[in-house]
């Protein structure tokens, strides 16, 4: 399941709901992305996440489907926020559940790597010198490229 929302989320509630009634699950891997108060040595007061309503949801669904096809997952969840966030705020939650841990760990990392390079979100940071758009990181492309099968 995927959700794109302005509101915060509760990790405990999300993980409980994800696994409820699915007693074949042996493990859940999760990743929570938080907003940092510094980037490249510059203090960041806040950040605004912009997205493309419609396409963002479609891309997240596509990425989730790919994970489900590549690993034997019994449940999966992506929750991504948009709007204005402050340091310490939660940005994203990715959780994957499977009978054994390897599939959960690997697919969780895959989802984060793909999400960062494919899902239409853009960050604008508020710095002491004014707003600035975050540039895409080459290291994110590299992280995503290791999952390519060709």
């Amino acid at each position, binding site marked *: 399941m995927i959700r794109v929302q302005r509101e915060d989320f509760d990790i405990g509630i999300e993980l409980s709901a994800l696994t409820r009634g699915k007693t074949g699950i042996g493990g859940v891997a999760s990743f929570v992305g938080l907003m940092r108060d510094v980037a490249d040595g510059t203090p960041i007061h806040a950040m605004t996440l*912009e997205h*493309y309503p419609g396409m963002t949801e479609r891309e997240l669904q596509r990425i989730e489907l790919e994970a489900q096809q590549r690993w034997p997952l019994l449940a999966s969840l992506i929750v991504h926020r948009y709007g204005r966030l402050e340091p310490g705020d939660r940005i994203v939650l990715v959780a994957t559940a499977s009978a054994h841990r390897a599939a959960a760990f690997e697919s969780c990392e895959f989802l984060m790597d793909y999400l960062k*390079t494919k899902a*239409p*979100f*853009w*960050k604008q940071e508020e710095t002491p010198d004014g707003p600035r*758009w975050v540039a895409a990181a080459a290291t*994110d492309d590299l992280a995503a490229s290791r999952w390519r099968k060709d």
Partner: protein
Amino acid sequence: MKLLYFAHLRAKIGIAEEQLDPPPGVGDVSALIEWLKRRNTRFAEALREPRALRVAVNQTYVGWHHPLKPGDEVAIFPPVTGG
């Protein structure tokens, strides 16, 4: 045709979306970008570096030579930075 611009492209161009009917010769993404660049200096500047652009047609990523048809929703945006 509906055009959408996001993030710093939207800021540079000055609008988030518009309805446009490009001339008949504009048959694919590449031709659309070139035509947009000729509209004014803001477009020329925002779309100057093709490698820094991503394009989606009807909410799916497409390549430079993807064909366009009337009624398409075309989004142009910089590389994404979510997560």
